[in-house]
């Protein structure tokens, strides 16, 4: 796997040259990975309402360090909202979100920004800057947060692009990329600052099988080689069971169940089993609540 070698090389390379800013970022990540037992994200009795619509009603989630955790649920359960709550972009109505020992809603803005440098969020659309080339997109966080010389910056960006297999696409604009390539560029940008945690928002949605395979492999590989923690929000059960270590199932603002993919497939909850195997009918009924079918038909006669 040449990509892995390159990634490792990138880490050594940075340390070897003693580039202050980036080293500080990495040391932060290294320091953290020592106390391995403590979950990296601890969510306690989280309540969040969008206007009058309650999205989360007392949710407890622990994201273990160094693992890939999947958060699943039907469409519209606020999975993206959860990621934004972890990133501190949204404020919960009640409860706490603690990331790496810091409550994201209580810390100062500066501390929150320092925390965000150590986590990345991969948006569903990629959210690449449309006016910058692929190269500049990946270079963006480095340019914003470090003062590396141009030559080192170039090497770093090319290494990140090599890791996602798009070193040759560096001069393209986001408009010239396919959806899958855009996501890979976004992934390269997300690992630019060597974060401790990456959150993926629906990484497989709308991609062809080859791209899905590539992204799955990248997620697994980056997680293991960089010692990351990954959170994947999705409803693609099949893909998730293949790569994740731990699963959370959310529906109706509550956690319906959690455990390893194997636990989940044999869960006692009928709802979880229905979701895992994608049955059309079960605890989640096929029919929207309605009066009795026969009565309804006769009523018109």
């Amino acid at each position, binding site marked *: 796997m040449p990509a892995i070698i390159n990634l490792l090389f990138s880490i050594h390379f940075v340390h070897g040259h003693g580039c202050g800013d980036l080293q500080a970022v990495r040391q932060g990540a290294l320091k953290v990975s020592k106390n391995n037992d403590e979950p990296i994200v601890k969510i306690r009795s989280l309540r969040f309402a969008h206007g009058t619509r309650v999205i989360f009603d007392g949710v407890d989630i622990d994201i273990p360090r160094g693992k890939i955790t999947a958060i699943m649920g039907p469409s519209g359960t606020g999975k993206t909202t959860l990621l934004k709550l972890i990133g501190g*972009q949204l404020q919960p109505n009640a409860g706490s979100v603690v990331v790496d020992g810091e409550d994201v809603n209580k810390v100062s803005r500066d501390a929150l920004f320092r925390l965000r440098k150590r*986590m*990345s969020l991969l948006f569903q659309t990629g*959210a690449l800057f449309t006016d910058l080339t692929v190269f500049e997109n990946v270079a*963006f*966080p480095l340019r914003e947060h470090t003062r590396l010389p141009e030559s080192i910056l170039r090497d770093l960006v090319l290494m990140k692009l090599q890791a996602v297999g798009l070193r040759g696409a560096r001069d393209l604009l986001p408009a010239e990329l396919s959806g899958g390539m855009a996501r890979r560029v976004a992934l390269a940008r997300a690992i630019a600052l060597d974060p401790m945690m990456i959150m993926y928002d629906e990484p497989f949605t709308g991609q062809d099988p080859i791209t899905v395979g590539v992204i799955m492999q990248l997620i697994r590989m980056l997680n293991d080689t960089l010692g990351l923690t990954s959170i994947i929000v999705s409803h693609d059960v099949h893909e998730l069971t293949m790569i994740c270590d731990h699963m959370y199932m959310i529906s109706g603002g509550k956690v319906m169940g959690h455990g390893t993919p194997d636990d989940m497939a044999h869960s006692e909850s009928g709802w979880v089993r229905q979701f895992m195997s994608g049955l059309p009918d079960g605890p989640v009924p096929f029919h929207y609540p309605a009066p009795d079918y026969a009565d309804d038909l006769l009523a018109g006669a």
Partner: protein
Amino acid sequence: MMGWLQRLGSTSLSVFERLGRGNLFLLRILAALPSLVLRPGLVIAQLYSVGVLSMTLIVISGLNVGMVLGLQGYNTLVDFGSEESLGQLVALSLVRELGPVVAALLFAGRAGSALTAEIGLMKATEQLSGMEMMAVDPLKRVVAPRFIAGIISMPLLAAMFSAVGVLGGFFVGVGLLGVDSGAFWSQMQSKVDLYDDILNGVIKSIVFGCVAAWIAVFEGYDAVPNTEGVSRATTRTVVHTAFAVLGLDFILTALMFGDE
């Protein structure tokens, strides 16, 4: 009747809400401005899209307005035998009123709407959100440079408009209609005052620049993040800027030139 009153109430409430949000937003931009001292490159890039790309429109419009002023002014003045005052008429109209106001209206249409659409689309495609998650404040990185570029560009564009307009008036008046060239310039110079006219015109255009840039970036940042929301925000930018500029122009004119 009740429905009508309710609508009035909710409309005025939402107007005040937006006004409040807009003002708070302005404060946040102002707080973000000092950080730009370290990143002049960001402002330069925006000066290009806000200022340089508006230049052609401004220069052509200025030339046309100046030429029309020369022609119309001549037709009126010649009846009183005072066509020598043409230079004064063209210069005063441009420097005091038309330069700042028309340049601001054109600016809103060309650069303001583009700013709104750009920021609105960045919001709609989660680029702003993504930036925030990368621990980069979009207010500092995206909004503030555009705001400052608008404020710097506006007086320069208005000055270009006026200067080119005077030349346009000169071409028509002196070149085509035969007004004496010396009289054209000397009448102009004796009646146009550096402080009362030119400087006040520049102050006006700076004020208009602030307002136009503020409205443009606010509408973009506050846009509903979808296609329809961005298109509505773009329209609002042009309409609101036009109203604000015309209203402010009246107030500023009364303050500046009222006591003469």
